[in-house]
């Protein structure tokens, strides 16, 4: 409360986190393996592609030592399909995130819990037609720092803007569609990091308002349930109004 910092991350912080994503580069110069905290980078030999973190790729790109390959979903054809999905196929829900590359089965394995920031969702062999967790900031960074590597960059830029508009209005629309009681929270599957950062303050504020208005009713119901002697449903009633 005393700190003037808001909850959540600023766009710059999200973009910083995004730079940890792995991307594929085509090096123009040889570079020996670097021992980073996250492990050694692959040796860069000119005609061979190699996956490296985005921040390193941007550094090499700025020094004209490498070209960055845009991930397949950042191509205009893929973005067009996603936009069509967002506007026509499912005008209410967000387009799904990329499928988990390691099949999740009933036998638990360590890969079950690997989540988007640690999955290579933006390398050249990432699946097209799915927006990964860092799509918006990655797209922006690509268009700024490596625009000559992105084919049809103006088209891509326009499509990214359109997608952002569509998805943000869905996010705001989800508030209007919230049901007063028993409707639960709107579905947020597939929302990107930057969108969470942008929508957080507003959505949390609205939900908090709903909670406070409904709190008297909530208290009354708790009391009624306590009088009826049922401890039964106490826990599952913890959800939002």
């Amino acid at each position: 409360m005393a700190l003037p910092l808001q909850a959540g991350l600023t766009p710059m912080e999200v973009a910083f986190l995004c730079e940890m994503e792995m991307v594929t580069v085509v090096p123009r110069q040889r570079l020996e393996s670097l021992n980073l905290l996250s492990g050694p980078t692959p040796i860069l030999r000119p005609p061979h592609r190699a996956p490296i973190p985005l921040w390193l790729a941007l550094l090499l790109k700025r020094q004209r030592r490498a070209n960055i390959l845009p991930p397949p979903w950042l191509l205009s054809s893929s973005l067009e399909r996603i936009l069509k999905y967002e506007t026509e196929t499912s005008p209410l829900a967000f387009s799904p995130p990329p499928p988990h590359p390691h099949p999740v089965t009933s036998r638990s394995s360590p890969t079950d819990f690997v989540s988007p920031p640690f999955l290579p969702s933006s390398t050249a062999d990432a699946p097209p037609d799915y927006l990964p967790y860092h799509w918006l900031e990655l797209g922006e960074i690509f268009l700024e720092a490596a625009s000559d590597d992105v084919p049809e960059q103006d088209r891509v830029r326009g499509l990214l803007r359109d997608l952002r508009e569509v998805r943000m209005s869905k996010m705001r629309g989800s508030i209007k569609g919230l049901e007063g009681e028993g409707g639960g929270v709107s579905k947020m599957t597939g929302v990107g990091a930057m969108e969470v950062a942008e929508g957080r303050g507003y959505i949390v504020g609205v939900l908090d308002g709903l909670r406070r208005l409904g709190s008297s009713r909530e208290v009354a119901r708790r009391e009624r349930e306590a009088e009826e002697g049922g401890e039964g449903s106490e826990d599952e009633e913890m959800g939002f109004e």
Partner: protein
Amino acid sequence: MSYYDIDAILTDAQKVPCTFNLNLPQLGYLDSAPGRPLPNGTKVDLPLWLAERLAVSQLTPNTSLITLDLPPSLSPRVMNALKADPKSVDLRSLAANFYGLAERILELFEEEDVCDVLLETWRVRAGEVGDHAVSTGAGAKGGGGAGGGEGVEFLRGLSEEEREIFRRAHDSSKAMRVWMGEMKKK
């Protein structure tokens, strides 16, 4: 709610109509008759923090010191207007901290209908506020100053809580635009 929360303090200071259930000597100045006793049954507007205390403290086991009434901002007339069209009501002129007041009143009264109407009102108006926050920002970038013509009336009638929502939505979308603008300059 924090002790120093200015909105909570302002909410507490809003007046609610009360009826005294006993004669009070020397308190006539509350009803603009200084020096006289305040007779039983007088209607006086008291701030919420005082009214709440008095309403729950009991004179005899069955009667409390005062009887609370619904404040005019939560009267059936307002509720009907909100039911008809939540967006057309000027909440700010009713009570600056409308939802805060409503929240406190709902704690004291069991008014299921009012609660329903208020939840619906908050949801619809918050959605509208979110749309305005984003579009106002976009307009301000080009023209400077508060853009938008038809929304001005609605935005003027926002309660304090809704303004806070507006501020948050506006700030985050502005931060986003600033970030995108900085990317361009590099």
